[in-house]
């Protein structure tokens, strides 16, 4: 928890933030609209006397205060998928449409991938990439259980993603939900900060920049790239955006979120960032009683 002390200069009501980080989060499931409706999924949960309530901001994202989201009939039927509440945001911000070409650049284990497929109504091409074969097998299992069929999965380093198997055509949209220091998942994984080192933050930031660069390159002019992390570290958030704005053909656009959020920070320690990074959004655990998150939306300009 001491790691979080570094964010005191940028977080409002820091003690409430610290206190929220120490509370655990309830299980949350997303209804898979490829296989059922929100109404029927809730009816199936009620049949098994599983208490559940919609989150205030999304009918299809349900909190299950008690119990294991994976041990019930609607889960077996592929109607539900366990997913942290804030992790349902990036696909909504990306807003993929049926029939489009969409890339999920760091996809495993597939919570957001399968949500993208549902938003696309399983129509169009959805490419999911990850460099970890073990985690890809979890992604494949999730995608099949949820009935996704418009998905092509590649095992490669996203920084070198090849469009060759896909006609060489660029994407309409890309989700860059990168590997990160995961500080924002502390309420789910109390040991998330135990391995924290500044060297890791710096190293992973290099990978994040590389994946975002490849996503911007692989997306058509006028297309959308969403960048997200589950960490508070500006090195992995605003600094990565600042670098992309400087080096690659893109601009940040405003994001409207259904949850309370704060703008990206323009000053951190000795650095200052492009003022446009304020268009990115920071989600803190104490404002909505969720995990922590960071999300930004970019438009590709060339």
């Amino acid at each position, binding site marked *: 928890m001491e790691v979080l002390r570094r964010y005191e200069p940028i977080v409002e009501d820091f003690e409430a933030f610290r206190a929220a980080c120490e509370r655990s989060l309830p299980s949350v499931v997303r209804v898979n609209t490829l*296989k059922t409706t929100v109404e029927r999924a809730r009816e*199936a949960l009620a049949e098994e006397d599983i208490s559940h309530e919609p989150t205030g901001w999304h009918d299809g994202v349900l909190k299950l205060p008690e119990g294991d989201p994976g*041990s019930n*009939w609607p889960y077996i*039927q592929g109607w539900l998928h366990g997913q942290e509440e804030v992790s349902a945001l990036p696909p909504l911000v990306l807003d993929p449409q049926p029939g489009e070409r969409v890339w999920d650049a760091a996809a495993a284990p597939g919570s957001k991938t399968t949500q993208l497929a549902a938003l696309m109504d399983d129509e169009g091409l959805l490419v999911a990439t990850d460099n970890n074969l073990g985690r*890809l097998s979890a992604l494949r299992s999730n995608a099949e*259980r949820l009935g996704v*069929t*418009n998905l092509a999965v590649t095992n490669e380093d996203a920084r070198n993603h090849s469009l060759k198997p896909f006609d060489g055509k660029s994407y309409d949209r890309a989700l860059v939900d990168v590997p990160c220091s995961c500080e924002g998942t502390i309420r789910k994984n109390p040991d998330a900060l135990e391995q924290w080192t500044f060297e890791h933050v710096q190293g992973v930031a290099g990978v994040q920049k590389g994946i975002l660069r490849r996503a911007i390159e692989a997306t058509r002019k006028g297309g959308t790239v969403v960048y997200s992390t589950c960490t508070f570290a500006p090195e992995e958030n605003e600094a990565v955006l600042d670098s992309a704005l400087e080096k690659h053909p893109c601009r940040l656009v405003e994001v409207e979120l259904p949850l309370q959020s704060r703008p990206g920070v323009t000053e951190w320690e000795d650095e200052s960032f492009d003022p446009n990074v304020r268009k990115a959004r920071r989600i803190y655990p104490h404002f909505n009683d969720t995990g922590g998150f960071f999300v930004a939306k970019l438009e590709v300009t060339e």
Partner: protein
Amino acid sequence: MTDSDRDGDTNAPENDSERFDRLPETEAEREVPGRPTREAVLDFWADRFGVPPETFDDHTFWERGSGKIWAFCGDLPSPVEIEALGMTFLRTRQEHWKPTLEAVQRFGGHAEKNVIHLSRDESRRFLAGEDQEPAWDGDWGYLIVTHNLAGEREPLGVGLYVYDELRSQVPKGRRRNL
């Protein structure tokens, strides 16, 4: 079809387990001996389960590994060398073709025959991987198993009915004790 069919012509192109090859439309277009055709796959679903061929109008079928058929919504230039393409859909290596649990859950709602409906207690045993003896006076072979969920019949998986017994085909990784 049996394995020996595939070994009959050593000069013919072979199935490559590292990549996805789109199924030929018909036998006339077939280059790899023994590879199922799209026509045969559509006929299988229609003949065995009464699933109308147009159910799959948006899907292409692909083989990776001998007799492992995948269904992908859309199309790509064949062959495709990637990790996965759509969902695993059908096993055609043995004499009797077997749909996957995932394909049945996704498309089995269109089935009109060789469908066995289980009670809650029976479906619980089926999901746990148990064999059982429910009433059935239809064909032997692979059946689509349905159960009631939220007021409607939903396809749950595949059972093999032989010798008056329904053998659960739920893969080990998908079995649960509910």
